[in-house]
């Protein structure tokens, strides 16, 4: 909690919130209590029809709860004027919901306009928001939504939701209707925005992989929005609370876990015998025999990995720059363990790890990966047993 000062979001608290639609016997949302921490992305994930949308829409009172209380930043949301409340809560939905007869700029201006900002300030804000979501204002400002791609429309939707700088952002399957590549980009973009903005984001999806990628915390919801598990993605992957969660996490939980960890988080070791490219093959061979090594890693002047050489190749080689085989896939300390595993498999059991400037820092092998997963399991099991 060292960095709370940059957080612009506020905490949202739901207490015993229930929604019963008129005419249906069972409530759509039954007695939900949860705390959504300030400045975090919380994902509501669960099967279709389980009540995710209903739960989210009660936060900005597009749906009025039948009972229970909701506070936003300590203020009782149910006692505010609903329109005033919604101008302070950003809202982005699937297919963006842009007004087709408004230009991009007019769409983004709506909430600042409702709040009575001056024209000049609104115009500046539109440009600022368009830059923020990666759309060139000069080019796109006066376009109509119809003239944009699906991904661009979604960006405008996010810009519109953020235009009045609300502390809270509600997003209901916002990337559900775009192709997988665009969706990936939009997800990356959202994470990038969030590192600066630090809003409280409530994000609804039925895609568990999306939840794992974006969430600081994930609430896995069952029927009637009952909370099956509410925890970090790591904890849910390592130790699903029940069969329903396990089913939802689906096959490949371990592989998904690997996408959450970075190489810098695990113990890679500096175990390779390295040699500068200008060392003579004879001296290197001598060193290798002394240390009983069969392979050496040749580095350039800036210590970036170049080639693997076998000790037997050295007796005939005239220089290290041409001997052996080039290094294939390497992984950086920033890479996910998932990417590292890919490289390890491609390279035959181990991969070179490089630092931020591409320099050799160590080696990672398959047992490092398996040990990490084992350790995580044990940690989370111990954690849940203790709690």
């Amino acid at each position, binding site marked *: 909690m060292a960095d709370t000062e940059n957080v612009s979001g506020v905490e949202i608290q739901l207490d015993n919130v229930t929604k019963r639609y008129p005419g249906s016997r069972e409530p759509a949302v039954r007695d939900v209590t949860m705390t959504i921490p300030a400045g975090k992305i919380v994902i509501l994930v669960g099967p279709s029809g389980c009540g995710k949308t209903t739960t989210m829409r009660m936060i900005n009172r597009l749906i009025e709860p039948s009972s229970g209380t909701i506070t936003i930043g300590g203020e009782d949301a149910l006692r505010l004027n609903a329109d005033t409340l919604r*101008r302070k809560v950003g809202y982005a939905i699937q297919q963006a*919901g842009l007004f087709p*007869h408004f230009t991009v700029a007019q769409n983004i201006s709506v*909430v600042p306009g409702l709040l009575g900002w001056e024209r000049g300030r609104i115009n500046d804000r539109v440009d600022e928001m368009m830059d923020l979501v990666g759309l060139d204002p000069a080019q796109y400002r006066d376009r*109509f939504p119809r003239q944009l791609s699906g991904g661009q429309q979604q960006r405008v939707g996010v810009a519109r939701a953020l235009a009045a700088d609300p502390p809270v952002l509600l997003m209901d399957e916002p990337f559900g209707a775009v192709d997988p590549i665009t969706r990936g980009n939009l997800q990356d973009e959202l994470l990038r925005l969030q590192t600066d903005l630090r809003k409280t984001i409530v994000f609804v999806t039925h895609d568990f992989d999306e939840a794992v990628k974006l969430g600081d915390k994930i609430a896995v919801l069952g029927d009637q929005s009952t909370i099956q598990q509410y925890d970090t993605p790591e904890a849910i992957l390592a130790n699903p609370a029940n069969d329903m969660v396990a089913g939802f996490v689906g096959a490949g939980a371990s592989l998904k876990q690997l996408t959450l960890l970075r190489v810098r988080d695990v113990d890679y070791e500096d175990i390779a015998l390295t040699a500068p490219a200008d060392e003579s093959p004879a001296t290197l061979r001598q060193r290798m025999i002394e240390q009983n090594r069969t392979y050496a890693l040749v580095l350039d002047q800036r210590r970036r990995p170049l080639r693997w050489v076998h000790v037997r190749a050295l007796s005939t080689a005239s220089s290290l720059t041409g001997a052996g085989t080039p290094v294939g896939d390497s992984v950086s300390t920033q890479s996910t363990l998932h990417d590292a595993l890919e490289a390890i498999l491609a390279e035959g059991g181990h991969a070179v790890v490089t630092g931020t400037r591409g320099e050799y820092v160590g080696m990672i092998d398959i047992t490092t990966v398996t040990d990490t997963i084992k350790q995580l399991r044990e940690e989370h099991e111990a954690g849940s047993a203790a709690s």
Partner: protein
Amino acid sequence: MSSTTKPQGFSTESGSRRADRIRLLAQPAAVVVLVGAVLVWAFTRNNDAIEAESINAGVLLTKTGEHLLITAVVAAIVTGIAVPLGVLLTRSWARPVAPLFIAIANIGQAAPALGVLVLFFLWTEWEGLWCAALPIAFYSLLPVLRNTITGIESVDPALVDAGRGIGMSSSGVLFRIELPLAVPLVLAGLRTALVLAVGTATLAFFVNGGGLGELVDTGYKLNRVPVLVVGAVLAVGLALIVDWIGAVLEEYLGPKGLA
């Protein structure tokens, strides 16, 4: 996006945009040629005294003016009643009674126009402009009422949801989102209504409302074919011009960014 699908309802749009463009130019030209030719023929032939009493600039202008006035009054009444009523009937609290009003408007249109006109005359004992305009307006209400309702109901609910979700009031959503997006259908309905009104206004002379019907009537009763032809051709020309004005309005008043 589902908002892009063409909503159902009365629509006078036909064919491609290109065909629309051509029609936009050709229609008034055809009217000018047709009406011009008939007028030239009527004024240059040897008219007898009875014919000359009708076929002169003063009478023709008056009758056309009366006809236009009825049409304009009808347009004002229809717009003033059917559009707000249509809007009201799409509010969630009024949905249950909407079919009732549609049914009434349906009856209005299904009943013979002349019958409605005469019954209204007998009932109120009024005559003249208002006696003609009110029943004709009732008769022409349906297309606008129905198209206003259809137009608003065919606005993608996600847009209304988005509007409310970002903090627009319900009237804000109505005036900035729902109505502008319904404008094309409302205009199409109005255009249909006005063409109906111009046609029906030829019956206004029954209640002393004047209009081009009077020429037709005179020509028929006094057995003067030229008078009858001039009256009929002017009425047709007027209907085509009103239809054309409707098309122009649809072209230029609709919301931008939809096509």
